[in-house]
């Protein structure tokens, strides 16, 4: 599954749904909803990838994840230009993800709950850091706070599948209406 569906949140949701013997169309529709946020990320990255031929762009799309999007955005915001940064990170992540999947199958039962060590927060902390470093205008601060609160609120309300795409699409409207 990790080889074909390179999408962490979707894979966990699928495992959950498999265990409940959910119908196949429900599983596919859930994955589609969870991944709608990548429409926004790909749109945002497409300005940088414009220089590449179509085949390269379509390969880049396969390895697009929250993490590679965030790292590449941080890189471009710091003035970086090279697309090698994105591809290196994204491909390395794909390889590691699949190696870790095999390791997890073999020894997973012995580890216990990894949340105890706060490891799950490493990605969150990285994303927070990228946002802080990417802030350029006062409006960015407002947009980041609104996006985080709207997405968090939606997740609490039980709409976690559409939380990121909704908040991510709505918050930038602030930049449109707010002259800086």
């Amino acid at each position, binding site marked *: *599954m990790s080889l*074909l569906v390179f999408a962490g949140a*979707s894979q966990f949701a*699928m495992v959950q749904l*498999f265990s409940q013997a959910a119908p*196949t169309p429900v*599983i*596919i529709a859930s994955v589609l909803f969870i*991944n709608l946020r*990548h*429409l*926004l990320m*790909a749109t945002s990255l*497409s300005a940088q990838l*414009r220089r590449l031929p179509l085949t390269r*762009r*379509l390969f880049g*799309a*396969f390895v697009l994840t929250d993490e590679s*999007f*965030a790292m590449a*955005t941080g890189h471009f*915001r710091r003035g970086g230009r090279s697309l090698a940064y994105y591809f290196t990170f994204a491909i390395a992540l794909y390889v590691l993800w699949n190696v870790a999947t095999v390791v997890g199958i073999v020894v997973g039962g012995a580890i216990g709950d990894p*949340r*105890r*060590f*706060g*490891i799950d*927060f*490493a990605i*969150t*902390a*990285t*994303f*927070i*850091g*990228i*946002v*802080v*470093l*990417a802030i350029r205008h006062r409006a*960015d601060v407002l*947009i*980041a*706070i*609104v*996006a*985080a609160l709207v*997405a*968090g609120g939606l*997740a*609490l309300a039980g709409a976690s599948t559409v*939380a*990121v795409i909704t*908040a*991510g699409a709505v*918050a*930038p409207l602030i*930049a*449109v209406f707010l002259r800086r």
Partner: protein
Amino acid sequence: MIWVAIVGAAIATYLTRSLPFAVMLGGRLPPVARRYLEALPVAIIAALVGPAVVAPAGTLTHGAEPLAAGLVIATVAWRRSLLAGVLVGVVTVALLRMI
């Protein structure tokens, strides 16, 4: 049946990622669209953070994550270092979850 679901999910996943790359916007964008697209990356990443801080396990946080998030923001703003921020965040969360 599981394999049908996996292949279907693979196609659904790939569609959301490849559509914007396949259909590239041509020419110059109007200023309104440019300002929207410029603000988009920060909004998306912040939106990924929100649920992980407010509702880490699907339910309301007990306080560890928001506190750690505050410390991460302060650390990165002060040291301009991602690594320092991540270390502070992980250690804070691990310690607070022990109590």
